[in-house]
């Protein structure tokens, strides 16, 4: 599908772009249109990226820009921390502590060396290296670097940033916590499940989380995979233990609905 878009870029002024959406990107675009009435398309403007939300008629409804860094920075003295990937995530991610210059690459399978990307991680931004875009998210000393995948839009960048901020409240040193990494990696694997429901998942990881009998009713309207995970909660000592036996998709679903499940009382942290 060819789309002609006239939009306002806050760096370049009024711009006119054409984009040819095909395959997975087109399918995702239509999905977003159906869901929210608008969908984002983005263009690389060199030192910044323009994201335009268009409606079903192709009219621009809102636009944003964010800076992009393409220059290589000198390597710094970073130290790798060995850790096991606890879930099978398809997303390439680095977890780092900026202050201590430590990083963990258990979810990183790219040819680009972590040390190439890490110097950019002084603050949240986008780095474009070797023709690939890396999203650098920052909260306290914690850094999460994600290789952007097809179809990801700016809202997801913000969502992951919010997620990292919530994770940091419970875990100021993400490099040393493979369970928190596993939760983040699971959500990144299924990014479109994400909502802002997740805040207390991280602080509850070491608590016993029980399903009440309200789960008997709720399970009829829950995704089957999530219902299975909820069923299993009562047989684990902590939420962390339960998540270690779960799939990334199940973890993402739990994170998506966690606030609601706690607010209604289906789940109780004890």
């Amino acid at each position, binding site marked *: 599908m060819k789309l002609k878009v006239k939009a306002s870029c806050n760096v370049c002024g009024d711009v006119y772009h054409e984009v040819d959406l095909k395959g997975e990107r087109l399918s995702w675009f239509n999905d977003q249109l159906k869901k*929210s009435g608008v969908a984002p398309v983005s263009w690389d403007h060199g030192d910044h990226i323009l994201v335009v939300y268009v409606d079903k008629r192709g009219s621009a409804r809102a636009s944003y820009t964010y800076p992009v860094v393409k220059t290589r920075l000198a390597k710094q003295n970073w130290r790798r921390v060995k850790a096991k990937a606890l879930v099978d995530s398809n997303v390439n991610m680095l977890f780092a502590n900026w202050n201590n210059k430590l990083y963990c690459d258990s979810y990183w399978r790219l040819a680009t060396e972590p040390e190439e990307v890490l110097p950019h991680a002084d603050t949240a931004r986008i780095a474009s290296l070797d023709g690939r875009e890396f999203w650098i998210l920052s909260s306290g000393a914690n850094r999460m670097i994600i290789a952007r995948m097809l179809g990801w839009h700016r809202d997801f960048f913000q969502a992951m940033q919010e997620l990292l901020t919530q994770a940091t409240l419970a875990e100021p040193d993400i490099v040393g916590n493979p369970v928190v990494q596993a939760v983040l990696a699971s959500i990144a694997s299924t990014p479109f499940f994400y909502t802002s429901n997740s805040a207390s998942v991280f602080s509850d990881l070491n608590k016993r989380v029980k399903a009440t009998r309200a789960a008997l009713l709720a399970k009829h309207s829950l995704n089957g995979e999530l219902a299975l995970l909820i069923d299993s909660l009562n047989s684990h000592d902590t939420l962390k233990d339960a998540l270690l036996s779960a799939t990334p998709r199940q973890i993402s679903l739990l994170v998506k609905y966690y606030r609601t499940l706690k607010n209604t009382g289906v789940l109780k942290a004890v």
Partner: protein
Amino acid sequence: MLMVRKFRCAMKLLRNVNSLLSVSRLGRMVNALALVIGLDKLGLLALLESPRSIEEIAAFIGDVKRQAFLEELLKALVNEGVLDGSNGLFRVNKATVKKLYSMRGSHPFFKGAEYLLAGFEEFMYEILVEVLRGASFDFVSPEVATLFYLQNSSPAYKIGREILLELGGGKNLKGKCILDLGCGFGVEPLTILEYLDFDCHLICADFFSNVVDECMHTMVEGESTPLPAPKPLKDLDNVEFVVLDPSMNTPFPLPDESVDSVFSFQLLHWSSYPQRIINECARVLRKGGTLMIATPLKDDNETTTIDVVVKASGGNRIYTESELSAFMEEAGLEVYCSFLSNFMVARKPNNSRK
């Protein structure tokens, strides 16, 4: 003007519910079926295939401490024809039970209450026994909260809310400040906002922080919104949130005469303090402002199946139309519309001194 509004509402209801005059009766029947499902799960229906005294029924349940509530339960079921009760003996009326079960699968009103019915299948029957045995059940328990979280999103409730908005001023409510009293988990504010094309200032109020928290995080999305991307309700400039005191010892945290309308859908029968709630609504309403209330209303003081289900779920009871009118008048409000044994709208007079 009022007749026009009523006519529009009635037409809407006819289109969607199929039956205009029997809404109140259907409500009682749905709750009767919920109780039948509960009794069936407990084995009581089988017991009642032969005539049984209340003592025999209490002995079957065991450790019944609330004899009066058991009496209310049985009487309400007799009134709905589920039980035959004569000479102090109760026996199940199989034809009525069969009819109720068949309506579950076929009648739109019953389909709209499916979560209530499923709740009685899953756990409410246990709660009924706990209450009969003396437990004090809280209507914000996980079970009831979950049941109503799911129930509240049913199309039947959406229609009900839109009818109440129609009765309370319809699209004339655009641009007004509306207090959504008992906003629940978020579906209700969305209905109000969408109905008014997001053109109003909405104060979402509920009695429990977990409910308000969930409401705040309800996502606003879809083609009907003016937003470029999905957002939680809390991020909308024209929506704010307040948590109220469930004991009603503290006034609503809103100034006198600060809102144009109060919208309260299916809330009043849950609270033990209906008069205090209506007094507070009257206080915060501007002169000429409207209070819109939807709550099941009954014809007389007889206990109904709705009363029993509400009490078993930790709520208070339902009221007669004259009781609700009296609450309004006591608060200095003038009732100007009562509709379908469910809806009542009152206005704060322009010369009000309260």
